[in-house]
């Protein structure tokens, strides 16, 4: 009974065969999934980024403003559209409740995308490929990314950031 004290000597009572088999299977499985974690990291082609720096939100804002000024090619829904050269450092800024700028990227080129927030936490969810990263004020999170499909992508804010959270939608264009 689980509500009464066990028989004296319970510590030495032997395991049933089935129990031994199951515990072995479970232990091997756990070792396997634990090893799979570094395995995937080392041999997989897509990991979450390990590059990050601390940055003051105001300084980040200044950098993004400069980036926009340098590469603006137009405007959509009041948000500047920028077309940075291949291989450039590119910037995305989250703030209540918009993503700017709109990025115009080239398929097959590699970019270093900087993410940070001006106010509270946000998160970038790229639709429709459903990739998600946290966007944190005070932290510059750098993702190295190479678009492999062309088309139009949305950035959906994925972290509750206040009453306008659901309206925080941005855009990325990938041209072939």
């Amino acid at each position, binding site marked *: *009974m*689980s*509500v009464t*004290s*066990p*028989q004296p000597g*319970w*510590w030495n*009572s032997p*395991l*049933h065969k089935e*129990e031994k088999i*199951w*515990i072995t299977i*479970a232990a091997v499985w*756990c*070792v396997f*999934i*634990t090893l*799979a974690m*570094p395995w*995937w*990291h080392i041999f*997989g082609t897509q990991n*979450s*980024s*390990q590059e*990050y720096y601390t940055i003051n939100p105001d300084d980040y804002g200044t950098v993004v403003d400069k980036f926009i000024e340098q590469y603006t090619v137009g405007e959509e829904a*009041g948000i500047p559209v920028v077309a940075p050269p291949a291989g450039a450092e590119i910037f995305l800024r989250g703030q209540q409740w*918009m993503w700017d700028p709109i990025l115009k990227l080239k398929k097959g080129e590699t970019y270093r995308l900087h993410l940070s927030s001006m*106010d509270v*936490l946000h*998160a970038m*969810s790229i*639709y429709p*490929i*459903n990739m*998600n*990263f*946290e966007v*944190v*004020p*005070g932290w*510059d*999170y750098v993702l190295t990314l190479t678009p492999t499909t062309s088309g139009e992508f*949305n950035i*959906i*804010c*994925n*972290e*509750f950031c*206040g*009453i*306008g*959270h*659901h*309206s*925080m*939608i*941005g855009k990325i264009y990938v041209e072939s």
Partner: protein
Amino acid sequence: MSSWNYRTCPTTGFKVHNKAETLIQFNAVTSIVFLLVGGIVGLTLALTRWQAVHLLNDEWFYRFLSLHGIAMLVAWIVFFEMAVLYFASAVILNSRLAAPWVGWLQYLLMLVGGALVAVMILTGNADVMFTSYVPLKAHHLYYLGIILFAVGAILGCVVFFATLVVAKHEKTYTGSLPLVTFGAAAAAIIAIITLSAGAIVFIPTWLWAAGIIPVMDSEVYRLLFWGFGHSSQQINVAAMVSIWYLLATLTVGAVPLNEKVCRTAFVLYILFICIASEHHLLVDPGFSAAHKTWNTGYFMHLAVLASMIHAFSVPAATEVALRKQGHTRGAFEWLKKAPWGNPGFSSLVLSVVGFGFLGGITGVIYGTEQINIIAHNNLRIPGHFHATVVAGTTMAFMGITWYMLPLMFRRQVVAPKLASLQPWLFGGGMMMFSTAMMFAGGFGVSRRSWDMNGVDGPFQVNFGPIVDLSLAVMGISGVVAALGGAIFCLLAVATLLFGKKVNA
């Protein structure tokens, strides 16, 4: 010790201390009130996420979402756990409850803290979700409420351990602790560790909200919050597993197969799960991949091992007990002849399946560094934890309530037919609900979002008919689960008010 403050339970033969009994009653009733509130609110949330219905407006959706998280994950679960702790110490050990006045302090602090938090949320002073990630700021009384609640819960754990000491000292039992009490002790140890971590994060946050501390770093907050927040989920796991053993004993007379194995598995929970919390931070800046994989791989999977052991032990003990009752024909007669009409038994089975298969497996999958990239903060996550903490923990707590009512409140459950239907509605509905959420999450539908299509935004997003269908399934199964939850609350209250008295 005079004998007037004890009674002997006619069913189980336990000696029940009246002060323990009263405290168990108060904590249990309060928890069910919170469950009712959280359930009604949860229903409105499900009917809002079902985009075709879209019941609430944006403001009330976010407000109710904050309330739902607190009322359910914090208030319902923890008040009930306090009742479980007092039961597993005083009642199971036939002991008096140590320092009942501390128990009352526990109850009052948690009640005042919980009420303060609820009032802050409902008056629009804390639209921050239960995670309250800084620098999103609530009124400082919100954080104070959380702190009071946590201190109350720590006091409950103190009373529990003091009662273990008293019982040992007064020799109310001989030999080792019964398994259920041992499991509850594991839960209480994890609770003390994690609630202390909670204090480390909530006290500075409170001072920050009150304007005393100027800045808080978002990422440090997230690390500390989940150090507390995730490990506190293991309190629920340990408490739930203890209840699995308890239910297996009460429903079919199961005896743990091997005490050593079961207890070692509980110790694995204590040792490892408290450390594994960074699967919440897998796509965050601030931590190296080596650190993340070590934390979520090694530490988490040793706790997974413990769960896998329990997931064998509980069904195996149940099978052995049923075969002993004579159901030995073939491989499955015991399963066919199991007491499926007993809501305690069906709750046990549904809880093991919901937690183990749906919740546990998805948790391990989503907690992988790479897979988390496609799961972080979309509906896959609430899908996962409605399987663990609702179809698993909540289902188990509901199951044991059918026994608490006659044992602790001395009332026979009214409408037993309805009671035997209840687990299927709630557990079945919840598993369906979780699955539908995970499905929609796979297409990138965000959690915590009032409108996935981006109305009021500069751009609109169209998810297409498959997502509409999954959200409709989510909505309908949410209604079914809510119905099961409502039946539970109503039967519990009706039993307390009108149930036939069980003779002492």
